[in-house]
Structures are given as C-alpha cells and as structure tokens.
C-alpha cells in the first residue's frame, strides 16, 4: 500500500527556496534577465488582509466550470471558486486539498481519499463524498474533454461514509493523481447539478463551489467579480477581499492597463512579447515565467506522413536540422522559451529524457540528407514545395512560420505559408488532412500521459477529432510503450517507459518539437504571495495579497 508522504498541509515553507532555485535555473538556461525578475520581488512581509485584486483574463471565459469547457481562461478563474481533491507543490507532488489524505492499494487499482470534514458549499450545503462521486463519474469521466481519457479506467467511486471516496479502477492509472487540482478536476455540487442538463445548467455561469472565493457577478464582456469566502476551510485565507477579472480584448490596451496600474495581475502572456521588454523596465511591475509547468506547452510541427516527400524520414530529419531553434525563439518569442530536444519539456524532470537522438541546427547536414533522398535542387534552387498551415492564434505563429520559411529556403525547400481562421484550420488539419506541415502548441501536461500519447498512438489517428494523431504516425513499438506506461504503477519503470517513448518519437520524427514555451505573467509589485506551484497560473489566488 502506498501512502501519501506526510507533509505539512501546504507547501509555504519552501517557496523562498524555490524562488532562489528558479532564479538560478532560469539564469542557467540563459533566459532574458527579466524572466527572473519576479524573484527580485521580496517575498518577505506579513500578508495583509483585504483589498481588491484586479486581474485581466483573455480570452473571456466561456463557462466557469472546466468540465464544461476546459480552456485555460475558464479554469484560471473558476479554480478560485472550486477546489480539487489535491494541490501540487513545487516538486509537482500531490498535496492535500479537499482530500486530507489518500492511499493507493490493490496494485494501483484502488485509490482511497479521506475527505476534509466541515467543508461547506458556498450556498451553505455540506460537502460530502457524494459530491466527489458525482463529479468523478458524471463530469470528469463523461463530460470533461481530457478527463474522458484520464479517468477512462475509473469504474466506480464507492462512498462508504460521507467523508470517504474510493476510486475503483479497471487497471492502475497513476495519471489520475496528477489530474486532481482545482483547474483540471473540479469538485462540483451534486445537489445543484444532478438531474439537470449539465451543459445548460445556469450554475456554469454562476458557480457555487467550496473554494476560497465566492462568485458574485459576471457581466459578460466586462468583468467577473469574486468575493472572499469567510468560511474557507484553509483558515486565514484568502487574504484578499475581492477578485476582479477584467475582460480587455485588445492586447495593446491590456499593456496600457498594466502601465496605468488599472490591473495588478496578467497571466498567460496577456500582452505582446514585444511589450514585455518595455513593461519589464517599469519599476512598478514584475515579470515571471513560473506557474505554467502543469501545462508545459511545446511548440512543434506536425508532418503529414501521407505526403510523399514527408513520408521519407530523411526529409523530416533534414527539416529538423535546417531549423535554428534558438534563433526562432530569440526572434519570434523574444527569448522566452528553450530549444526543445524532446516532446517532453526539460522542466518535467520526472519524465524528460535528454538522451534522445538529436537533430541540432546543421544546414549542411540537412542538404546532405535531402540529396540522399534524391531531392536535388532544381534550376531555381528549389528541391520541393510544401505548404505550411500555421496555428491561427495571433501573429506569433505566422512569424514563426516566416522564420522557418527562411531557414528552409536556405536548404532548398519552398515553404509556403497559408493563413485561415481557427475553425478552418482545425477542419483542414484534423478532418480533411489537407495539409503538409502545420504548427501547433501542445499542452504536454505535468504528467505527459495526459498530453503526449494522443499525438503518437496509432489508434488515435481518427478523422474529425481535434488534437488527435493527425500525422498518421503508426509504430507498433510506440503503441506498446504507450499501453505499458498507462498501466505501470511503478514510478521508476514509468519514467523509463516515457524515456523510451521520447527516443522513439525523436527517431521517427512524426512531430518536430521546436520550443519549450514560456508563458509570461506580469504583475504589480504590490501583489505578493503569488504561488510558485507548477499550476500556479491555473490555481486560486488564496495566498495572494496586496501590499500597501
């Protein structure tokens, strides 16, 4: 039987240690100085009670319930209203939240959660194991886009008493313990959702949770207001009286609002990176890149393997050698990022494998590989033409496409950019497969089982399913490793399997990871107590406070 480590209820003690560590680590990565400037904000001082924190969230949430729609904006706001069973510390290990403790038994087929007593929903009803059962079986497993895969092995949730919930699994599913925070798997009130049309339940826009803040008002297109929950189970928290999430759709206007002090907190790279350098010099503001490891975004290219040129591994390797990743990051992302050597980012130290086949920038090698593949330069210097459908989220990905186009031109590949809106792109790339190379950002997730296998599993090459294996990659060896790691309860063996999967992916190159992305949080220096956990940008602001 595996028991959770006996840790203090909350990881406040090691925050400073982490900040120092993060500073050194970021400096070692050669990231821009401003990246670490958050560490320069003194963490000392007693939290001050009261005040209104004004944040900006973009895009506007579409629902305040991640089971209904789990885009980051929804989760980022609603994680203040709802709790998860667990939280995660700086080392990405689970910590108590609504579950005070947990035990894994029966070879990983059973997880027992002992729930916190005396917790109330914001409407005064008691929180019980029945809420956990309802949330897990009806919301996370059936409705939540990612939960359907994460909780696939969940057969039932037994509730022997109001404060015990036992997850019964068809096979070990270690990924579940990495998916139980307040953003990913929100515990929602059974008494308000049972026997309703969940997608149309008005509580999706006016949530009733157990979290540190109580929903007060959502004026669509303007703002969302949350107020302090005076009866929050984590005594003394939250420190703030009120949270306001403002909706400012224009990026330049968001930058202005930060400069004028109208907003204190802007997570998820809310302003253009070109503006970050300017804002970094503002003595009233701090810039940080921590709090995003839970999602761990990677920027990559997908190769359509049904394209005769791209079906040749030598061509894919040539493209990998032809792209200057550091140059791409410096030019397009202003240095915010790190060249990717594997689809699992290096910050996920429990899973990252650095010993994979490398495809470092080497245009000479790229040319040799293309010659070897029989793709010789024509009279115009072009070997062949491919179309690039860049991810249509703002101009950044078009700029990245332009940069790559210049790189590939040098080795004789004509890389033609094609723009479109997001629904058209999704249809083209995941339904019609009418593309050659697309660019994408993939949330690999803190436990990469949530984000990586879907790109590589051959059975996940399903027409019409966004975020699936759209390259047509089919390698029985990769399938075997994925199946094995999904049910491997031993952490060491699982890490080895993930290592193996990364090596296979970087050998076969159906996808080409280019950059470990860094999101940017900009906040007022008056704002203290921002969490440093891997999911901080998606976690509640219960610890945050405003200094005078």
């Amino acid at each position: 039987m595996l028991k959770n480590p006996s840790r203090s209820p909350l990881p406040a003690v090691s925050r400073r240690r982490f900040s120092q560590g993060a500073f050194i680590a970021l400096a070692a990565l050669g990231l821009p100085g401003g990246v670490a400037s958050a560490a320069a904000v003194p963490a000392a001082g007693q939290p001050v009670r009261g005040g209104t924190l004004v944040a900006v969230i973009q895009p506007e949430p579409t629902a305040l319930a991640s089971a209904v729609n789990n885009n980051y904006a929804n989760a980022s706001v609603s994680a203040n209203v709802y709790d998860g069973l667990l939280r995660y510390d700086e080392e990405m290990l689970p910590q108590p939240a609504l579950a005070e403790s947990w035990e894994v038994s029966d070879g990983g087929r059973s997880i027992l959660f002992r729930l916190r007593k005396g917790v109330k929903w914001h409407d005064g009803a008691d929180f019980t194991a029945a809420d956990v059962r309802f949330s897990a079986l009806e919301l996370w497993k059936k409705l939540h886009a990612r939960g359907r895969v994460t909780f696939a092995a969940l057969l039932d949730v037994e509730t022997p008493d109001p404060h015990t919930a036992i997850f019964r699994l068809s096979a070990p599913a270690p990924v579940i313990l990495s998916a139980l925070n307040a953003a990913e798997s929100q515990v929602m009130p059974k008494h308000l959702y049972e026997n309703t049309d969940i997608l149309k339940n008005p509580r999706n826009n006016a949530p009733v949770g157990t979290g540190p803040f109580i929903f007060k008002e959502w004026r669509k297109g303007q703002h969302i207001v949350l107020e302090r929950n005076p009866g929050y189970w984590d005594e003394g928290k939250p420190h703030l009286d009120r949270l306001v999430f403002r909706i400012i759709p224009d990026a330049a206007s968001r930058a202005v609002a930060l400069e004028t002090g109208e907003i204190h907190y802007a997570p998820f790279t809310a302003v253009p990176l070109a503006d970050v350098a300017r804002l970094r010099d503002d003595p009233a503001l701090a810039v940080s890149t921590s709090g995003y490891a839970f999602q761990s975004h990677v920027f990559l290219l997908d190769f359509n393997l049904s394209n005769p040129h791209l079906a040749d591994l030598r061509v894919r390797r040539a493209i990998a050698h032809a792209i200057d990743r550091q140059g791409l990051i410096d030019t397009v992302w202003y240095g915010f990022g790190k060249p990717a050597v594997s689809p699992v980012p290096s910050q996920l130290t429990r899973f990252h494998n650095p010993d994979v086949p490398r495809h470092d920038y080497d245009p000479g090698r790229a040319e040799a590989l293309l010659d070897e593949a029989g793709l010789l330069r024509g009279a115009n210097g072009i070997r062949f033409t491919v179309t690039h459908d860049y991810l249509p989220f703002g101009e950044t990905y078009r700029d990245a496409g332009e940069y790559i186009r210049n790189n590939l031109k040098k080795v004789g590949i004509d890389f033609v950019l094609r723009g479109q809106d997001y629904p058209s792109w999704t249809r083209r790339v995941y339904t019609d497969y009418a593309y050659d190379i697309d660019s994408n950002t993939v949330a690999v997730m803190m436990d990469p089982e949530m984000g990586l296998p879907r790109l590589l599993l051959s059975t996940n090459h399903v027409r019409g399913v966004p975020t699936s294996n759209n390259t047509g990659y089919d390698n029985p060896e990769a399938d075997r490793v994925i199946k094995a790691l999904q049910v491997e309860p031993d952490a060491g063996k699982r890490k080895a399997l993930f290592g193996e999967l990364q090596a296979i992916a970087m050998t076969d190159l159906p996808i080409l990871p280019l950059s470990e992305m860094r999101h940017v949080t900009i906040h007022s220096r008056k704002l203290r107590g921002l969490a440093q956990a891997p999911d901080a940008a998606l976690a509640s602001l219960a610890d945050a406070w405003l200094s005078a």
Partner: protein
Amino acid sequence: MPTSLRYVFRRLVQALPMAFAIVLLNFLLLKLTPGDLADVIAGESGSATPEFMENLRRLYGLDIPVHLQFLNYIQGILHFDLGYSFRQGMPVGELILERLPATILLSLTAILFALLIGVLLGVVAARSRGSLLDEAISVVSTMGFATPLFWVGLMLIVLFSIELRWLPSAGMVTVGADYRGRWDEWLDIGRHLVLPAVTLSLFFLSIYVRITRSAMLEVYGLDFVRTARAKGLTEARVVIRHVLRNALLPIVTVTGLQLGAIFGGTVVVETVFGWPGLGRLAQEAVFSRDVNLLLGIFLCSSFIVIVVNLAVDLLYAALDPRVEVRQ
C-alpha cells in the same frame, strides 16, 4: 388607420421576407465555411475522442442534416426563441439584450457627436469657401476619414489615459465602484464613453463635414436663397432656415445608412476599448462558429437597420413638404 401608420405597418411587413433572406443567406454562408463549434471547443480543450465529438455535435444539434438545422432554427424564431449559445452558455436572446444597450449607447453618442461637429464644420467650410479655414477643415476631415480607427483609439489612450491620466483606458464602468446614486453611475459610464465615442465618431464626422459642405454650396447657388437675401433676411437666418434645412436631406440619408454600417466600426472600437457591445460579440461568434448567436445578432442588426431606414423615410416627409407618405 391613418395613412402614415398604414405605411409603417406595410414597410414592417415588407421587412419580414428581407429578414428571412438575411437569416437564410448567413446560415448558408456559415455552413459553407469549414469547421463548426464542436471543432472549436474540442480544439481548445486540448483533448478529444470520437465519442466526445459525437456527443458535442448531438448536443449542439449539428448531427442532423443542414436543412433540418435551418428549419429547427426558423421554428424557434417563430416562437420568439433565438436559440442557445453553447459557446457562451446562455440563451442568445439574453446575450443580445445584455450587450445591445452598450452598442446603442456607443453608436448613438458617436453619431450625434459626429453630426453636431460635422455639420457645424461643414457649414463653416461652406461659408468660407476657398479660404485657408476651408482648406484646413478639408485636410483634417480627409485625415479623419483615412486614419484607421484602432490607431486613433490607441493614440487617444496614450494621450488621455497614460500621459494625462484623465480618462480610463478600457471598460464601461469602474469595477467595484461604490456609486452614491444613479447620477454617479452615469457619470462613470460617461467618462468611459468619451474615448471610444470620439474615436468612432471621427470616421463619420469627416463624412458629415464633406456632405454638409457640398450640399450647402449646392443650395447656396439656388434662386430662393437669393430671394431670401433680397427680402432682407439676416445671413444667419438664411443659412439656418433656408440653406441648411434644404441641405439636410442628404445628411439624413447618410445618417440612416451609417447607423446600419456603424456595427462594423463598433467591432474595432469595442475591441480596442474593451467596450462590452454587440460588435465584439459578433466577432467572437464568427471565429467560434457560434451559428445561433451570429444569426441572432444579424437578425437584431437587420431589424435595427430596417427601423432606422423607415424612420429616415418618415423624417424626409417632415423635413421636406414636397415629400409625402403614400401607400
């Protein structure tokens, strides 16, 4: 029933097939564009399965043939039900009613401001034809017409929000403001309204200046103006009572047309200033393929255009006795 009322009724009935055509055309256009709401939501979610997609399409009513989707929609409209926006998690009717007042406030303020200043400058330019002042007004109004709205908006923000700190840069109200009364709240909305309304009005203002100037110059040359002057009327009376009144017809026509077109302008201005209006909502609906919401907005805007045009026709009759309201 009086003639004018019968006329109004007839025009409204005539508008019904037009509204139907607008809905049908837009429905078809939206269905022709690749991708649907299920693609968008699944794409954003970062994970999906075939069952998940099937489930979404069933819930959104996208799993049935297109003509049946359209019939269902029309059936809903006949019951005054604009449908449900699964993207926004609200009935479309509620969403539109929530956003419409902000757009109307912004549009009307901008048009009124543009009308007042535009007509005034147009009169001044016409009166001082060929002078330096006339040239200056022409140049400035051409610049206003040619400058992109988003740039004007951002420049006004830099000046009045960042440098001078006189006005807020975004939003419609001060969040969490403790208003002492209705007046306080309106004052706050007014402060937020200044920059977006001025930005939006600049484009229209330039048009009014030019139209007023040319209409005034045209009327100036007519015989009745000479007669009015010969009667010994003061110049102010000649300009206001005779010239301007006759020059107003094209201005009224353009205003009617612009009230319809102003929705286009509000998309940009609402985005730059975070103004919670219908234009921005429409833009979001396009990019998320939120068909119900978009059709609802189109219906609403076409209804507004029809009513405004009707009002313009009635206003003609009031302004020009030669124009009669007939069957």
